């Protein structure tokens, strides 16, 4: 068991709270930097996708996990980002500028979508964002002069002021940099007044308001930031796929994103990454396991959907805190061995009005 001796308020502000954090996260960064040399090209591509989805997951986590506003149309922001990037890159804009535009446009769209969130909550907000997702998908399919319609559109390789990132390794590093910067940004927000205002809105709007938090401003801000991150992820996704079409940003993609953060663990930054790992590796695992199953099961159509469904239901029933919650329990078990008690993480049933996260 680790006890942290605190002698300075600045200690509570630090991102790495103790030596263990420095060691393990340092090790993780080294491992990620070395990844192109220690994995195959195929798994490097999967790792790139994990990073891209993690960025989108961070965005949705900020909105759903920290501000308590659910969005069932998040793939639309991914689409806006991807198409902006595609159009601008093909027009010859260098990558960083196109990425900024993609983030900016997504944020602007997010701001507009955030406006109904000021009036509606819960399932109604879900419906509003869901229909927004359909609208964007339809726009992408119909606005053929710009988006190429259902035939889709090709994206050129990212160009960093003359240096074209052609190979998978180079693009992987680009995604790694974006993912690390987004994570640091989110962590910074969470340790400052803006992030705390989001959390306050999630837990009790009425008292957030009485603490002087401008609900409308922070809710739309949360939507805009979340959409901007999704837009950045969409831009990277477009480059990785090299070809995008409207059906890549449909309701199924939105559900994947939501599933990802629920399984990863709503309300934790780790959850976005764990969820992304889960979302990308599960189909791979299914493909591997398939060969060892009897043909009637292994070759059955819809096996993936069934496995996804079962996993999601199991998480909701047995581990509402997601993969990150499970990890916390395992870690506490090891730290406290042999004194871990079964009920330690049991949620206290509280019958307070502010118990609205669930």
């Amino acid at each position, binding site marked *: 068991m680790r006890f942290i001796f605190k002698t300075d308020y600045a200690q*509570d502000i630090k991102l790495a709270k103790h030596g263990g954090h420095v060691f393990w996260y340092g090790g993780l960064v080294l491992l990620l930097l070395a990844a192109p040399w220690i994995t195959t090209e195929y798994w490097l591509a999967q790792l790139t996708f994990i990073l891209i989805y993690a960025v989108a997951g961070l965005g949705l986590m900020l909105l759903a996990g920290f501000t308590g506003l659910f969005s069932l149309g998040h793939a639309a922001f991914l689409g806006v980002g991807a198409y902006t990037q595609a159009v601008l890159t093909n027009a010859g804009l260098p990558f960083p500028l196109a990425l900024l535009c993609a983030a900016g446009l997504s944020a602007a769209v997010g701001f507009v979508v955030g406006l109904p969130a000021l009036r509606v909550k819960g399932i109604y907000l879900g419906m509003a964002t869901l229909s927004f997702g359909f609208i964007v998908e339809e726009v992408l399919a119909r606005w053929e002069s710009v988006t190429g319609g259902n035939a889709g559109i090709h994206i050129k390789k990212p160009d960093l002021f003359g240096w074209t990132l052609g190979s998978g390794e180079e693009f992987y590093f680009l995604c790694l940099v974006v993912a690390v910067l987004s994570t640091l940004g989110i962590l*910074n927000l969470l*340790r400052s*007044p803006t992030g*705390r205002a989001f959390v306050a809105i*999630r837990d009790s709007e009425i008292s957030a308001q009485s*603490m002087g938090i*401008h609900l409308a401003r922070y809710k739309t801000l949360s939507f805009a930031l979340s959409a901007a991150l999704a837009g950045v992820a969409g831009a990277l996704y477009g480059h990785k796929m090299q070809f995008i079409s409207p059906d890549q940003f449909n309701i199924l993609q939105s559900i994947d994103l939501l599933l990802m953060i629920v399984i990863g663990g709503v309300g934790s930054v780790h959850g976005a990454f764990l969820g992304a790992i889960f979302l990308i590796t599960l189909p791979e695992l299914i493909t591997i396991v398939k060969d060892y199953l009897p043909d009637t099961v292994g070759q059955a159509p819809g096996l993936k959907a069934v496995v996804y469904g079962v996993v999601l239901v199991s998480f909701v029933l047995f581990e509402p805190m997601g993969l990150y919650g499970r990890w916390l329990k395992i870690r506490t078990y090891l730290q406290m061995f042999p004194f871990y008690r079964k009920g330690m993480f049991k949620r206290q049933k509280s019958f307070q009005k502010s118990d609205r996260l669930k």
Partner: protein
Amino acid sequence: MTEILLSATNLSVRFGGVLAVNNVSFDVRQGEVFTLIGPNGAGKTTVFNLISRIYNPTSGSISYLGQSLTAQPPHAIAALGIARTFQNIELFEHASVLQNLLIGRHTHRQTGLWQDLFFTAKARSAELQARHKAEEVIDFLGLQHHRDTFVAGLPYGVRKVVELARALCTSPKLLLLDEPSSGLNVEETDDMAYWIADIKNELGITVLMVEHDMTLVSKVSDRVLAMNQGQVLALGTPREVQTHPAVVEAYLGSVDDVSSLRRQAA
């Protein structure tokens, strides 16, 4: 003559057919503890919600330090120096006590979104300043043990204190306490009485509270306003109000009511 901090003039609120607050006027003076009492449904909490702008008055006005409160949006109230607690604790449950207190510093934030996003040197120093203020409040209310505990895991009595602490973190001029002693045991209520007295005497904060516990009320209040069914019954010192015939009637019924219950002498 002490300065008048908050004054309500002819306040009325109507919810459908119910006149929840009916033509209520009162003044809260700088540096006093002013208590609203009255039976359930008397409209005390509604008056609170009018001051914190959760409801709009149907008629009447509230002025605070000479400016009209009714023109302000609800989120601007805290910045004016009015903080409140809630009857059914409204804390941020999935955050630690310290984080709750830091949210209380929101109106004193010095940084914008971009400074927060990059956590600039200014954001860092503002963060440390907020922490110093939060620690002062933690020391004042003796919350050191609970600093890093999540609110969801705290007992009711402590949550009540955390809510008071969060309100104090906003550095208010006027503190609205909605039933500070409800759900507290005798010792905790005693503590609350000391703290309210300290808030008034040491911190110089004016307190406006709603309270049912008459021991607490008479211990700390300078003036008491008794209400029933939305109307003012009596205003004065705790002693005067407790013996006021209209107040006695509201709580116990009139002599006529009681005598009609007595068995007829044979």
